[in-house]
């Protein structure tokens, strides 16, 4: 695999990754993220989709709503004029694909952002406060975690008039309300473990206020987990928004990938072999989801170095000093790891010597 052999991040990608960890101290700027194909493929795809979200509607060859023929009654297969064919309504599929990315990506990121803020507020507060407040907030999170989200969203959107069903930010907000609980639970567990650390204790003894301890001592150490839960929620937002649009619950005049799948279903695309109606939007959603999931894996491996060793081949692992008998030092526990703790200078394999 050509991409797999290039294990080094180039500077541009490293800079992008650093945006995930803006608060990392300068000494840590030498990136210790796993140099695996996962990161590179995931980042490249995600950046590509980001660019598409911005310029997509402009580079679309036609207006996605434009009807090209009033006589043809079936979707037309790909041709020179319409590279991905036309829909049942004789609209250009390629233009819809390019224009539909913006809405899908925007909703997902709005949902991820709002859900992450909510999960920090609930999760960190619960973990730091403890006692009755913790019990109540944890129960709230567990309640939202257990509630089947999609049926709930279908009920909510079912009551929403179609005119209001096309507002990307509103949709993102509603999705976020059902998607913050997982992050809150993970953040709470980590905060709980950080709360009793010496440096937090000493800050408390010095007389720092609670909000200051939370935002300057605890939050910086939660950033990898925050990034992971943010990506997870964006992934959830992509899937959920696509599903809602697929069900026709979003304003049908609003171009999105899920909406394209809705019209594919209406046209009976899977029964009649109109693959160009469902394959492009479906693949786009799947690739966007894959890129987010790959990045999430990489953050998992960053948090838990043992998973990282698993990504090496036997030969490379042996060269890096990870053999069956000499495994990486057992300093980390899954889920509750001091992720940005000071460690000895890293060797060239990214692992402390």
């Amino acid at each position, binding site marked *: 695999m050509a991409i797999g052999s290039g294990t080094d991040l180039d500077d541009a990608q490293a800079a992008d990754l650093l945006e995930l960890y803006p608060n990392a101290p300068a000494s840590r700027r030498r990136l210790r993220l796993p140099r695996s194909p*996962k990161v590179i*493929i995931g980042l490249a795809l995600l950046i590509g989709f980001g660019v598409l979200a911005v310029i997509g509607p402009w580079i679309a060859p036609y207006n996605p709503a434009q009807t090209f023929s009033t006589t043809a009654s079936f979707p037309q297969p790909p041709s020179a004029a319409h590279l991905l064919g036309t829909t049942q309504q004789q609209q250009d599929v390629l233009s819809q694909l390019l224009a539909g990315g913006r809405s899908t990506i925007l909703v997902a990121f709005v949902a991820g952002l709002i859900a992450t803020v909510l999960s920090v507020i609930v999760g960190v507060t619960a973990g730091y406060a403890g006692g009755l407040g913790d019990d109540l907030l944890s*129960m709230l999170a*567990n*309640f939202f*975690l*257990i*509630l*089947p*989200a*999609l*049926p*709930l969203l*279908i*009920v*909510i959107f*079912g*009551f*929403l*008039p179609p005119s209001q069903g096309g507002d990307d930010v509103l949709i993102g907000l509603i999705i976020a309300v059902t998607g913050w609980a*997982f992050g809150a639970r993970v953040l709470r567990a980590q905060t709980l473990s950080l709360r009793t650390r010496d440096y937090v204790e000493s800050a408390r003894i010095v007389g720092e206020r609670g909000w200051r301890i939370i935002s300057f001592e605890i939050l910086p150490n939660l950033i990898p987990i925050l990034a992971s839960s943010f990506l997870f929620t964006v*992934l959830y937002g992509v*899937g959920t928004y696509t*599903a809602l649009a*697929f*069900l*026709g*619950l979003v304003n049908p005049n609003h171009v999105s990938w*899920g909406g394209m*799948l809705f019209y*594919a*279903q209406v046209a009976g*695309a*899977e*029964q*009649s*072999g109109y693959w160009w109606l*469902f*394959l492009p939007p*479906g693949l786009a*959603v*799947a*690739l*966007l*989801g*894959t890129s*987010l*999931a*790959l990045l999430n*894996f990489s953050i*998992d491996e960053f948090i838990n170095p*043992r*998973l990282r*060793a*698993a990504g090496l*081949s*036997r030969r490379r*692992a042996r060269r890096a000093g990870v053999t069956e008998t000499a495994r990486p030092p057992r300093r980390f*526990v*899954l889920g509750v790891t001091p992720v940005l703790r000071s460690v000895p200078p890293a060797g060239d394999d990214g692992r402390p010597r």
Partner: protein
Amino acid sequence: MYVISRRIGFYALTAIAAVTVTFFIPRVMPGNPVSAVLAKMQGTVVTKQTLAALQAEFGSDTREGLVGQYLHYWNDILHGNLGISTSNGMVPVTTVIRGALPWTLGLVGTATVISFILGTLLGILVAWRRGSWLDTLLPATTFFQAAPYFFLAFLAIDLFAIRLGWFPAVGARNTLDFPAFDWTYASDVLDHAILPALTIVVASAAGWIVGMRNVMITTMDEDYVLIAQAKGLPKRRVIWYAARNAILPSISGFSLAIGFVVSGALLTEIVFSYPGLGFILLSAVQEADYALLQGIFLVITMAVLIANLAADFVYVYLDPRTRQEA
């Protein structure tokens, strides 16, 4: 037992909260069941009595007040009355749901069990043989997991049902009436269930694989695994020791997974026109049948809660530490 009774208490509270949420959504959102029915009755003269009767039927009788409506709603639910379904000729919602529930339970239940067992076994294998070609399985399964369920369903129908003609593309059985329960009928149902079930398994197995692999890798570094290896126990025994400890988080993570699987399965049913809850959910959405919509949500929520309770029982049975706590 303390742990179990605590969990039952939590699920009971969750159930109450779910009913409350279901009660308030129509009252907070702009849509209105009464006006939806009135819109369908366009042309007929709506008298005051008709309006009052409709309001009473949908539990939005303005004379009752909010608290009265809420108590009324609870009374109805406890008596198994979920209202009437306007899109199915005004039959009770419970009747509509009762017709669809067995199909969903059969399909989703079987697919979830298969996916859990298959995913967990693969996860163990991938963790044990880490660094081998099996690691390439992960990005592939990630793709299937990231793809929307219904997209996979589209692909499955196009490829296996239409182009290859191996399986039927839609529905759950050929005959419409209920014939004798014999082999022909059973094989017909099975034939129709294979593609939808396959879609759900392929899409949901990735979660179990990754979860199991990650915990398994951590567990394999434990001292007792090292000792088991040092004693020269057969590899199978060593894997067994590690795996049965690593499986615990998978079971406790069940609550997150089951929600995803159920949601995905609903969409799969829609693509396959499989006559389960997902299918009638779509028609309820399209026909603005609010009572049916709420009823389906409540039934799904209760099913998820029961599945979670079952997972908790299994967890307490498997992990002695939870029993000692009490």
